[in-house]
């Protein structure tokens, strides 16, 4: 029944009369919407980054580390003595039903040479399980095989950073590199993974068969020793059962009595990362909530101006009522003004939010993600702010007595 285009035109005209006032009122909404979008963009960017880092690390991971050892009443720190072996790793895979795959590893820093270039990198001896455990794909060549492990083959998988630093533009496949002066054949190149949650370059790595690392590169205190074992559980729900099963199995294998401390420890990496992710999400919400306060303040600004406007235009309201405007006609007219104020403010706010997110990511170097839904929500929300804060002044206008309103000077 109400003519929307006409009402809109009337509202726009009323807003144009007081350009400065309308602009300042809008500014409240612009800042509010802009702040909400920018803050959500910062928060979303941060949690996306963490989520990606977590998934780049591989999912549902447990790490079995050598534990503290008590020798002669002296308790040593974690990892003070290696107690884990390749056989432990095989046993975990074989006997723990909740475990999908394992990757034992033994390694350290080593100088690597190709031609006249050399590079110090992290060389890890591991098994074919590493690619499954870390959800890592081969970019080029082939993965490590069980045959490589059995025969202690001198083959290597190279991370992207190593390839860049040693090979420049040359195809590294089937080239010979020397690790600690021992020649290895490059059989594969790994996909790029980027930074870890801790900020380490995950691509600066070389994988060689664990047996080769034990015998040729790093040496071991006892045969079959590994530094740690990364375990992938079958699913998120299997993480806890897997931890329990591994604990039981290793206690048994290491002959630890019920009263003794374990000589290993198990860390739930995924859980740790999820805590980080959770706290980022909380931070996002917090930022958004703080920004929403400014949107609220903007809404109060709209209400304030609308109340002034109703008082100023009492006579106009009286004329409209005398001519036949019903309660809702008057109400809609003022609500429409509030909505237009807040929607125009909201639209500009979206642009401001987008550009300030860009500025933040450029200046601070943070990753920001402006999602379309967040812009849409901010826009709809600003419209609702208009309706909410416009309603009371509009309602007040609609309750005026036409006779008094007509006489108002």
């Amino acid at each position, binding site marked *: 029944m109400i003519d929307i285009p006409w009402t809109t035109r009337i509202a726009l005209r009323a807003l144009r009369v007081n350009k400065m006032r309308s602009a300042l009122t809008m500014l409240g909404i612009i800042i509010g919407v802009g702040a909400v979008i920018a803050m959500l963009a910062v928060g979303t960017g941060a949690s996306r980054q963490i989520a990606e880092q977590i998934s780049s690390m591989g999912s549902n991971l447990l790490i079995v580390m050598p534990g503290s050892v008590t020798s002669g009443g002296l308790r040593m720190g974690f990892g003070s003595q290696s107690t884990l072996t390749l056989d432990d790793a095989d046993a975990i895979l074989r006997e723990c039903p909740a475990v999908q795959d394992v990757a034992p590893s033994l390694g350290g820093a080593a100088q690597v040479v190709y031609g006249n270039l050399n590079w110090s990198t992290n060389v890890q001896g591991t098994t074919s399980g590493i690619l499954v455990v870390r959800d890592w794909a081969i970019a080029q060549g082939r993965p490590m095989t069980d045959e490589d492990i059995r025969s202690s083959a001198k083959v290597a998988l190279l991370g992207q950073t190593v390839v860049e630093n040693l090979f420049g533009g040359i195809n590294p496949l089937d080239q010979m590199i020397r690790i600690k002066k021992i020649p290895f054949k490059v059989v594969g190149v790994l996909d790029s993974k980027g930074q870890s949650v801790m900020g380490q370059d995950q691509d600066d790595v070389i994988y060689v068969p664990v047996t080769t690392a034990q015998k040729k590169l790093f040496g071991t205190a006892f045969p079959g020793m590994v530094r740690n074992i990364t375990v992938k559980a079958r699913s998120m729900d299997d993480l806890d059962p897997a931890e329990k099963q591994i604990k039981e199995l290793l206690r048994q294998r290491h002959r630890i009595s019920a009263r003794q401390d374990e000589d290993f420890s198990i860390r739930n990496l995924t859980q740790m990362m999820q805590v980080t992710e959770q706290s980022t999400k909380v931070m996002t919400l917090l930022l958004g909530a703080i920004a929403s306060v400014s949107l609220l303040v903007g809404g109060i600004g709209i209400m304030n101006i609308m109340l002034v406007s109703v008082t100023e235009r009492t006579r106009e309201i009286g004329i409209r009522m005398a001519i036949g405007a019903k309660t809702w006609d008057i109400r809609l007219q003022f609500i429409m003004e509030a909505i237009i104020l807040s929607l125009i403010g909201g639209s500009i706010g979206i642009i401001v939010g987008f550009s300030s997110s860009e500025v933040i990511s450029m200046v601070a170097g943070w990753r920001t993600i402006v999602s379309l839904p967040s812009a849409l929500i901010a826009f709809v929300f600003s419209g609702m702010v208009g309706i909410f804060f416009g309603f009371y002044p509009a309602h007040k206008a609609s309750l005026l007595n036409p006779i008094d309103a*007509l006489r108002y000077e």
Partner: protein
Amino acid sequence: MKLIEAREVTKVYSLGDIDVRALEKVSVTIEKGEFLSIMGPSGSGKSTFMNIIGCLDKPTDGQYLLEGVDVGSLSRDDLAAIRNQKIGFVFQGFNLLPRTSALENVELPLLYNSVPVKEREERAVRALKIVGLEGRGRHHPNQLSGGQQQRVAIARAIVNDAPIILADEPTGNLDTKTSQEIMELFQKLNSDSAITVILVTHEADIATYSRRVIRFLDGHLVSDEQQGSRGEPLNPSVRG
């Protein structure tokens, strides 16, 4: 059927402890097609009576029947609808919307009557033509003279084909010559379109354009006379 029938209409305003009796048992009947003046000094109750006739206010006591409908029992929005369709207001201060073109001012009652855009414009243009403002539709009130503004207000009053024009001191802000033109326009609308014109005025000179004059004093109706109007012979149909 009687167009307007006031039966012992009483209006009491309470100002704090004091009750002000603005109208005391006023009974008037107005037939369709009449041209009537309501006169009286300020405070006599004529404005209160006009507000009640115009459905801007309700009587405290008594009945007001408009086309046989008891207005006293209607809701706020129902009264708005009656004002929209039955009554065209013309005010002393013109009361046009500022920053709004003459055409849009005239269209306003049609808008609140949900008339489609195209028809709205056609009817507004026609109404402006009737009041002699053809081609002035795009002008804003501040670009028009007082007389022209009042003509726009009259166009707004007739655009919805309301049977009644209620004019409150319509010439109060106009010079003598323009007043004369406006009054002649009312006469023309009254005779050509059979619109009932009810005029509130305290100028005896203006009241001479009407054929019937009722006078208020201290809230009472004190006289009700037929007369020959200026420029027209005494209308035989209402002479007695």
